[in-house]
C-alpha cells in the first residue's frame, strides 16, 4: 500500500524526474565531449582502435595507455570532481524534490505539473540543513568503514594461526556485514531526517537524524525494509544492464547508439529510484506522523503531505 502510493506520487512527478535526469546528462556532457575529442585525437590515423569495436583488446589498450595515458588522466580527474559537484547539486535539489512530491500527494489525476521555478525556489531554503545531514551521515558511514577495517585487521591477526583462508574470508565478510548493515540503516535514516526537516521546517540536523534513526529502527520492516527493497531493485537493474549489454558488441554507430540508449535508460531508472526512495520516506512518515515528536525549527509551519 505504502509502496504503491509512493510509486504513484513518483510517477506523477515524471516531469521532475526527467528534469533531474537531464541535469545528470548535462553534467556528464562535460566528460563526454572532451573524452570524445581526446580519444579521437590520440587515436589519430591508426587502424588499431577499430579492433576495440569488437570488444576489449588488451594490446591496443595498453599500448594506448602507455603513449596517451597522460592525456586521459585529466578526464578521469574531471570525472571524480563531477561526482562531487553532482553530490552537492543533489543536496540542493532535495528540497525541490520533496516539495514536488508533497504537492502531488492526494491530488490523484489532477496532480499539478512540474514547474521549474517553484522547484528551484523550494531548493534554496533547505540546502544548508540538508547539507548538514549529508555531512553527518557521510561522516558516520566513514567512521563505520574505519571500524570495519579495524575489525578485519583484528580478525586477520587473531586468526592468522588458526583459521584457514575460507574461514578467514567468511569472518572478514561477517565483520563487514556487522558494520555494513548499520551503515545502510544510517543512509536510510538520512533520507528520513531530510523528510522530517522538510515537513516540520526544522533546522536541527543532528536532532532530526536522531529522531529519524529512532523512527527507522521502530518501523524497521516498513522504513528500512522498503528502503532495502528499492536499493535491491537498483542492484538488480544494474545486473540486468550487464546481462543485456554483454552480447552487444557495439561494433558500429547503430549499436553504439543502442548501447548509449541502454546506458541512459539505466541512469534514468536510477534517478527514478532515488526520487522513489524519497517518495517512500515521505509516504511512510505521512502515514506514521503520530509516532514522531515535532522536530521544531525556527518556523512552526508544517509542510503538506
Amino acid at each position: 500500500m505504502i509502496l504503491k502510493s509512493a510509486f504513484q506520487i513518483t510517477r506523477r512527478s515524471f516531469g521532475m524526474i526527467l528534469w533531474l535526469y537531464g541535469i545528470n546528462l548535462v553534467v556528464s556532457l562535460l566528460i563526454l565531449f572532451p573524452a570524445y575529442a581526446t580519444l579521437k585525437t590520440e587515436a589519430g590515423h591508426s587502424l588499431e582502435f577499430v579492433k576495440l569495436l569488437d570488444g576489449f583488446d588488451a594490446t591496443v589498450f595498453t599500448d594506448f595507455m602507455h603513449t596517451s595515458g597522460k592525456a586521459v588522466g585529466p578526464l578521469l580527474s574531471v570525472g571524480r570532481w563531477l561526482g562531487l559537484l553532482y553530490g552537492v547539486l543533489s543536496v540542493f535539489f532535495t528540497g525541490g524534490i520533496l516539495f514536488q512530491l508533497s504537492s502531488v500527494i492526494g491530488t490523484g489525476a489532477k496532480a499539478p505539473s512540474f514547474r521549474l521555478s517553484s522547484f528551484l525556489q523550494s531548493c534554496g531554503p533547505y540546502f544548508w540543513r540538508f547539507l548538514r545531514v549529508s555531512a553527518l551521515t557521510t561522516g558516520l558511514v566513514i567512521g563505520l568503514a574505519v571500524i570495519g577495517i579495524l575489525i578485519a585487521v583484528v580478525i586477520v591477526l587473531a586468526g592468522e594461526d588458526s583459521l584457514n583462508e575460507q574461514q578467514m574470508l567468511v569472518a572478514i565478510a561477517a565483520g563487514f556485514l556487522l558494520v555494513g548493515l548499520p551503515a545502510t540503516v544510517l543512509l536510510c535514516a538520512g533520507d528520513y531526517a531530510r523528510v522530517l526537516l522538510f515537513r516540520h521546517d526544522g533546522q536541527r540536523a543532528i536532532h532530526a537524524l536522531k529522531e529519524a534513526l529512532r523512527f527507522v529502527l521502530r518501523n524497521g520492516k516498513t522504513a528500512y525494509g522498503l528502503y532495502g527493497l528499492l536499493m535491491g531493485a537498483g542492484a538488480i537493474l544494474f545486473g540486468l544492464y550487464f546481462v543485456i549489454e554483454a552480447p552487444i558488441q557495439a561494433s558500429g554507430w547503430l549499436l553504439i547508439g543502442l548501447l548509449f540508449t541502454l546506458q541512459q535508460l539505466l541512469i534514468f531508472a536510477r534517478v527514478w529510484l532515488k526520487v522513489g526512495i524519497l517518495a517512500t520516506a515521505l509516504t511512510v512518515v505521512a502515514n506514521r506522523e503520530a509516532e514522531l515528536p515535532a522536530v521544531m525549527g525556527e518556523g512552526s509551519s508544517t509542510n503538506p503531505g
Partner: protein
Amino acid sequence: MGYWRLFRRIALALLLVGQWGRGAAQSLFPQPLSPRIAKYQIEVRLNPDTKRLDGKETLVWRNTSPDVIRELPFHLYLNAFKNSQSTFMRESGGQLRGVSIGEANSETFGWTDIRSIRVRDGENLTGKGQFIQPDDNNRDDRTVMRFPLAKPIQPGETITLDLTFRAKLPKIFARTGYDRDFFLVGQWFPKIGVYEAAGTRYRGSKPTQHGQWNCHQFHANSEFFADYGVYDVTITTPNKYVIGATGLLQNETPNRNGTRTGHWHAEDVVDFAWTASPYFKVVDSQWRQVKIRTLMQPEHQGQAGRHIEAAKAALAYFDKNLGRYPFPNLTIVDPPFSALGAGGMEYPTFITVGTSWGMPAGLRMPEQTTIHEFGHQYFMQLLATNEFEEAWMDEGFNQYYEGRIMDATYGAKSSTVDLFGFRMGDLETSRDQYVHLDNPAISPAVGNVWDLPDAYYGTLTYLKTATWLRTLEGLVGRPVMDEIMQTYFSRWRFKHPHAEDFIAIVNEVVGKRLGNRFGPSMQPFFDQVLYGTAICDYELHSVRNAKRGKLYETTVTVYRRGDAQLPIEVLVHFEDGKQQRLAWDGKAPVRTFTLTHPARAEWARADPQQKLYLDVNFNNNSYTLSPSTAPAAKYAAKLTFWVQNWMQWLAIFV
C-alpha cells in the same frame, strides 16, 4: 613347531623382505636417461614441532671430467635464511615475490648444518669444511661450503661420502619452509656443486686447461643448478601427515612411535623436494602414462579439476610441439594461502602452484601457474640450464611456452583474464609488461642474475625473453621455430646447454630451412635482443596519393623510431580491394615506398601480422586516410556512463 613360533618366523621373514624391498627401488627406466653423476641416499626425519630435519646422506659422486678433483663444494641453501647478513637476505631485504619473512627471530630463520662428513673407507672430513663466497666475498654468507680432499679424485673415479646433517626450516617466505602444519621442503640437504670440464659452457672463450666447479652462493633472484642423479630418500613423519615428493613412492612402513617412513625414488633428476601436511586432499588423475596427483588444501579442493586440466593441456602441448615428458608421474602441490611464498615453484616431477578460495573461472591464475611450473620440467629439469648464470634460458623459454599453451588452450586474447568484459592473453601480458617499462633498454637479460638491475630481474628474464622468442617465431615462422626448439631439446636434454648452444641450433635450422633470408647468421638478431638493449618501434608515418594521369602514385613512409633493426613487411590496401605486400630490411631510419596503382591507397600497415612482437607500440604501425571515429565515440560513451554512475552513487549519500 608351535603355531606361535611359526607365526613369528613368517612375520620376521616378511619384515626382512620389506626391508630389502625398501633398499632396492624399482628402476624407472631401462637405460639411464642422463649422466647420473650424483647419487643420493638420504634418510630424513621431520620434527614438526621444532621444524627441524635430522638427516643422513650418502652421496656417490663420479668425476666425469678429465681433471683431478681436489675439493668438493656443497650448496647449503637453507643457510641463506640463517640471519639477516646472508647474501640472500642482504639482496632481498627479507622479502621475495611480495612475501616477507616478517619478524626476524630464531623461529622464522632457517639453516643447514653438516654435523659429520666422511669419505667412505677414507678421510674424515668433519671440521675441515670452509665456507666460501665465490660471488661477492660476503664473509657472512654460509651457503657454500668447500671440503679439500687429501686424496684427490682421479678422472673416471667415484667417491662415496657419508654425511649427517641437521636443518631448521624457515618460516615460508621464499619457496621453502613451514607455515603452521604445512611443510614445503626444498633445497634442504647438502647438495654437491657441478664440476664443469674445460670448454663446457664458457661462452666465447677458448677452452681452458682445467675445468672448474660451478657452485654459486644463494642469491635473492637466483635459482639453482645441479647435476643429474638418482635419489633414494626415506622420509619419516608423524602418521597424520600426507606426503608428496619428487619421484615415486616405493613403499611405506608404519613405525611404533606414531610415525611412518616412506621410501621415494627418482632417477635422472637434478633435485629432490617434498611436502607434508595433515590437511591435503588427494585428487588423482592420469594423462597417458603420466599419473597426476594433486595435493589440495581442503578449501581449494573444488579447484583440483582446473589444475589437472591445465596440467593435461601442458603435457599434451609439450608432447606434440617440443618433446616427450619421460617421467611416469607429476605431483601438484597447492600451498595454503598463508604459505603462498612456497607457491609457483618447480622441482623435478613436483610442482607447487597457488590459488585462493573462490577464484573465479575467468581469472586463470591456477591454470597459468600449473602450466608454467610444469613447463619447467623441460627447461629446468630436462635441459637443466644454469639458473644462476643464464636464468633467462629457463624462465624466459618457459614463459614463452606458457604463453603459447595458455593462448592455445584458453584463447589468445582471453587466456589469463576473461572477466566482466576485461580480457587479456598470456603472451600479450608478457609483452605488455616488458615493452611498457619506463625504460625497456635498462639492461640485457644475460649475465649472472645478481648482476641484473634488481627490480627488473623478472621482467628481463621472463618477459623480455618470452617476447623476443615470440619475435623470433614471427620472423622464421611457427614450423621453423618448432623445429628449432625440438632440435634444441632433443640434442641438449640432460646436457646443461648454454646460450651459444641454442644460438647454434637457431643458425643451423634457419640456414637449412630459410637459406640466407636473414643473412649468413642470426647473430645480429641475438646481438640486439639478447646481448643488447635495442628497442623496436616502427611507425607507419604517412600514406599519400597523387593522381598521375589514369593512375595514382602512392607514397608510403615508414619510420624506424627505435634502435632495433629488424626485417619488416608493409601491407598497402587500395580502394579497389587489392593489396600489395612490401619488404624492408628495417635498417634505415626512414623508408619511403612509391607505388603506382589504378586506385588510391586507403591504408597501410607495417608488420601487419605483428611478427615483431618486441615493437613497443603497435598502435602507430598503421595509417588510414579515413580514420573511424566510432571507437572514440564508443569509449567516450562508456566513460561518460561510468561517471554518471559515480555521480548517482555519491547522490545516495546525500
